[in-house]
């Protein structure tokens, strides 16, 4: 039995964020499906793993974590010498640039992109009506963020450096859902962003995450 367990749902963006990291690092893990439809994520058993009642929860032996970015960050550090190098090594200044772009994903990209994903992907999927005003407001906001990315990606092949890192990986789950909606136009109109999106979504580890839908 693998020491590492991920409790989550294959559709959940946050679950996918952790899975992407584990596949990039080529680490064995056990996936424990959580049935969100029956409210299993609010059960006492699950709340003991994540008191906020959200997927995923993460275990490595006696260590229990939650929050996908903290879990992925732990994996990237603990298994630094395995699989893809997802961190920047070097001086504190060089490492700080990775932290910066991880924060940009969390505080600039995540909110507007999540709102668009919810409105344009999940709501139709669940038979709910899309709120066009919310879409417009958040696409506009997301466009401004992507304008900054467009400039950044003329200076650097990936967000934090010339190599793929956690900062890029954290974006994959929302980007994948956006690509399945008309909002993909926000990428297509920005050539460097478009190239970056195509590059990172084509990574074999990410394909393995998506293939979990078929299990």
């Amino acid at each position, binding site marked *: 039995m693998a020491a590492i367990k991920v409790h989550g749902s294959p559709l959940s963006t946050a679950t996918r964020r952790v899975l992407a990291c584990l596949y990039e690092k080529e680490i064995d893990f056990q996936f424990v499906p959580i049935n969100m439809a029956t409210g299993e994520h609010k059960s006492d058993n699950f709340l003991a793993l994540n*008191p*906020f009642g959200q997927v995923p929860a993460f275990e490595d032996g006696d*260590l229990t*974590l*939650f*929050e996908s*970015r*903290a*879990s992925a*960050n*732990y994996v990237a*550090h*603990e298994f630094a010498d395995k699989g893809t190098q997802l961190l920047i090594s070097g001086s*504190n*200044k060089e*490492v*700080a*640039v990775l*932290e*910066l772009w*991880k*924060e*940009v994903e*969390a*505080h*600039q990209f995540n*909110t507007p992109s999540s709102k668009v994903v919810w409105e344009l992907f999940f709501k139709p999927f669940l038979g709910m009506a899309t709120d066009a005003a919310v879409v417009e407001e958040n696409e506009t906001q997301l466009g401004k*963020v992507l304008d*900054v990315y467009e*400039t*950044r990606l003329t200076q650097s092949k990936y967000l934090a450096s010339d190599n793929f890192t956690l900062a890029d990986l954290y974006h994959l789950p929302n980007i994948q859902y956006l690509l399945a909606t008309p909002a993909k136009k926000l990428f297509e109109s920005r050539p460097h962003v478009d190239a970056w999106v195509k590059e990172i979504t084509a990574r074999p580890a990410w394909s393995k995450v998506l293939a979990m839908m078929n299990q």
Partner: protein
Amino acid sequence: MTIKLYGVAMSTCTAKVLACLHEYGAEFELVPVNLQNGEHKQPAFLAKNPFGQIPALEDGDLTLFESRAISTYVAEKFKGSSCDLLRSQNPKEAAVVKTWMEVESQQFSPAISPIFYQSIIVPILYGGSPNQAIIDESAAKLGKVLDVYDKKLSSSKYLAGDFYSLADLHHLTYIYYLMKTPYGKLINERPRVKAWWEDISSRPAFKKVAPGLTLGDKN
């Protein structure tokens, strides 16, 4: 060469970094940014932070933005002193600190920020009326988050363990402002959260920062 922090003392995000700098006894210069004149949206500042928000930090040839990335950099740079806010020497402790830093980012901040914005920013900076519906919705969310905190703080003195860390520090400035509003009751009516707040806000480093958090004060 000294660290330069561009921002203003009354800003929650700038003050978050100030608290961290003071914990480490770091030398720095606070360079004011004239928000009223829109300095943060001018090319010179956008060259430091393309998102046009304070704070930004310069340390020699390094320019950073995002307050939590800045505080993390400060904690790493001054690692090895008696101050240890990231627990970097212990990977499991460090992972738990990161977890509760993410909780502040992803659970706490989105719930408290609209209360701060509606109660303090809207009336003071825009002369408008607070949107009570937004406040009520956010207060309900914040209450649920703080319920989790109250339970966690029954098994550890601070959020990530029995040690003060950046996970606690990142809460200081928003809670300080919350306590100036009627919604401070959300803290006060949860005994362990209240005790934790009284502890962390009495730290000498924060006592240097608090006098600058003047939004909402009557002149």
